[in-house]
């Protein structure tokens, strides 16, 4: 660098009010002259070419600073936010303003049957992928009841959309309870469970590149009842999810983030489950209201709640994004649970609804109905399922299969049920994890049959 004593005053700030940025400033000699968590830099440096490295969650961006005078640098931080918040590049006025307006309108207390479910789908940028037109996307989505009945199918009458601006928004009023959001029009069909609670708006947000970004869509249970473009809680949600990946990342939550968590019972619930899983005890926000989401309670080991609910063996979509194992300090999911199967095989879906994953032919239709009852009874003796009160699984499975029969998908139904029946037996015989057998059923079934020719 220069030997000059002359130093210039630089101020580096970001156009987005983001808490918890990790900044590294590298000088012309590639030496790190600053590293730390801050939202802006205010310092004196020598003339030169600098690079600023910025990290937030798992997003990374670099900036060039040519310092030859006192300068102020205002940069855009282009975090790919799914929620159209905080003026990120992926936020756009035409997204956040419309969503905010629609959200406020639809949650107006004077509105009859005030909606408590809000769906937001949008491209990341309206100018990309012109072949992707919202009016053709919205019909992919439907809401199912907990008994697999289609309650609502999105269409041009009940869903707002703008093809030019690349968004579609739905809101509706549902009774409290468990529902499923089905996304059927993609190459990768998914079914997401969600819940409706008193005094909360359940929000689902999904974005599109050339196809739906299923990895980053999420549910949010808002006690604020509406969406605000300056809302910070969605970014805090992302940070909490990052901590599910590695609990060390929980330290990246700022004091301000902690304040936001306190105001949102859904976030409190997530932290509660996170800490119980990672450390064995819940140490933060213990005096705060939380939202008793059954699947999170299951993760937190609250068996009492499991027995009291008609709960499905699924994880919230947001949870599965970061369901990973780290040596001994991370989140461990118990082997053999159906939860593992869900994560392992179909990730976000109820495995028995994800029939598109099953492509091999099956020809034996003899005695199907007799076999059905036998198989489902066998199915519900799974160690996980027997902890659930009642015959929820059996009923649900029968309904799902019956519906498949009606839609001429019997072969798939039988094959699915055959799998459910045989997995545990084969896994035990071959000393393999059940989910491994589940994933590779045909191969292991062949091996099993060769070992046991009388089967």
């Amino acid at each position, binding site marked *: 660098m220069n030997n000059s004593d002359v130093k210039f005053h630089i101020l580096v700030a970001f156009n987005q009010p983001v808490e918890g940025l990790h900044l590294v400033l590298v000088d012309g000699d590639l030496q790190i002259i600053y590293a730390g968590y801050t939202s802006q830099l205010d310092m004196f440096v*020598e*003339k030169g*070419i600098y690079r600023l*490295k910025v990290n937030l969650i798992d997003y*990374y961006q670099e900036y*060039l600073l*040519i310092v030859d005078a006192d300068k102020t640098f205002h940069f855009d931080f282009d975090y790919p936010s799914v929620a159209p918040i905080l003026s990120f590049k992926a936020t756009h006025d035409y997204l956040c303003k419309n969503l905010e307006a629609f959200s406020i309108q639809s949650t107006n207390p004077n509105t009859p049957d005030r909606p408590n479910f809000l769906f937001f789908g949008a491209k990341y940028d309206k100018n990309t992928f012109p072949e992707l037109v919202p009016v053709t996307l919205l019909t992919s989505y439907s809401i199912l009841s907990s008994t697999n009945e289609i309650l609502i199918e999105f269409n041009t009458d009940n869903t707002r959309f703008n093809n030019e601006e690349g968004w579609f928004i739905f809101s509706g009023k549902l009774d409290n309870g468990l529902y499923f959001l089905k996304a059927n029009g993609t190459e990768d069909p998914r079914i997401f469970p969600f819940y409706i609670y008193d005094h909360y708006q359940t929000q689902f947000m999904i974005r599109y590149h050339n196809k739906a970004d299923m990895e980053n869509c999420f549910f949010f249970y808002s006690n604020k009842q509406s969406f605000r473009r300056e809302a910070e809680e969605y970014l805090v949600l992302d940070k909490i999810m990052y901590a599910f990946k590695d609990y060390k990342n929980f330290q990246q939550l700022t004091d301000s983030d902690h304040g936001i968590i306190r105001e949102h019972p859904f976030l409190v619930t997530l932290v509660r489950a996170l800490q119980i899983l990672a450390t064995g005890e819940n140490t933060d926000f213990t005096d705060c209201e939380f939202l008793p989401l059954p699947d999170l309670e299951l993760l937190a080991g609250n068996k009492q709640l499991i027995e009291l609910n008609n709960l499905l063996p699924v994880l919230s979509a947001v949870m599965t994004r*970061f369901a990973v194992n780290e040596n001994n300090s991370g989140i461990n999911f118990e082997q053999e649970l159906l939860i593992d199967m869900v994560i392992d095989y179909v990730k976000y879906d109820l495995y028995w609804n994800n029939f598109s994953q099953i492509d091999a032919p099956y020809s034996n239709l003899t005695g199907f109905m007799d076999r059905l009852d036998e198989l489902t009874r066998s199915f519900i003796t799974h160690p996980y399922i027997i902890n659930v009160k009642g015959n929820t699984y059996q009923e649900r499975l029968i309904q799902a299969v019956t519906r498949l029969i009606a839609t001429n998908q019997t072969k798939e139904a039988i094959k699915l049920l055959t799998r459910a029946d045989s997995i545990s037996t084969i896994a035990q015989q071959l000393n393999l994890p059940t*989910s491994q057998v589940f994933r590779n059923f045909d191969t292991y079934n062949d091996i099993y049959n060769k070992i046991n020719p009388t089967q």
Partner: protein
Amino acid sequence: MEYAIIIGIDHYDKRALSGAVADAEAFAKFLTDMQLVSNPDNIKLLKSDASNQIVIGYEIDSAIEAITENAKTHRNETNRIYFYFSGHGIGNTFNNTALCMRFWPKMINHCISSLDYLTGLINKGIFDEVLLFLDCCRENDTMIKGLPPIGDWQNKVGERVPKVLVCNSTIYGKLSYEVSIDSNQKRGAFTSFLIESLKGDADTNNSGRITALDLKQHIENNFPTYALKYNKIQNGSASTDNGGDNIVICEVKKLEEAYNFEITFNRNSNVTLYNKNADKLRTDNVVTGDKWHYKLEKGNYVLVDNVSGEQKTIINFSENTMGYEQF
């Protein structure tokens, strides 16, 4: 004595890769050119091809056994083994990656465990330095179980406890990318960076040699920048054990050429090159195809198109490696 097992697999039944074999070949060539493996017979290069059924696993065990037998005849020397893999991978844990073999995923669990193979090499008791380089994805799947080496890999032989370096192309749970280094060939971003690092870029203190610690720091500090050049967000990781930081991986050859940086222009404009002190090095009109050659010190540089205002950062990590940029 030095040994290397180098694996590159492009030809998977599903999700074939484009650059893994080229990466393996490049890494083998690097070891040969730098004479890091003095006897070419000690490099076992296993690469897939449309007409072969390599690598399905046994070749690796066979190569390890052959190398081990040879290393026993050099018992009194410092024995080093490089284990390099480029292909598909699956993250099992933070320190264990399932390395996908040729018939994955058609053949169930057709993967080997990086941790078990590392343990097996350590337990051979004949190596003093074990260096693992893994250029593959590490997306999480706790259900996949990579296979261990054949034979008795779990029982330690002898008293030697080797220094260990493990370099991963990406952090646990994340993808590893292939990028277009030039218009004709895709390559693993990490392997390209790794080879340039070992040629001299990682010699951050200009000591004339690169230690495992140098490489670790260079990967941590500069690989994300390198990946971002190709519009990828990718962080590598490196770890050492048993004094692995002190492994001297290689000496850095002094570059004899008159220049160490070539800038090729793809525009007709007026351009300025600024040095790391933000002083103008050169301002000139350029046309497509023009080349500027410079001997640049280590540091940040900037090219500015004085007509459009477009800027491009140039980073020269070392005076002893050739750098190329297009602008």
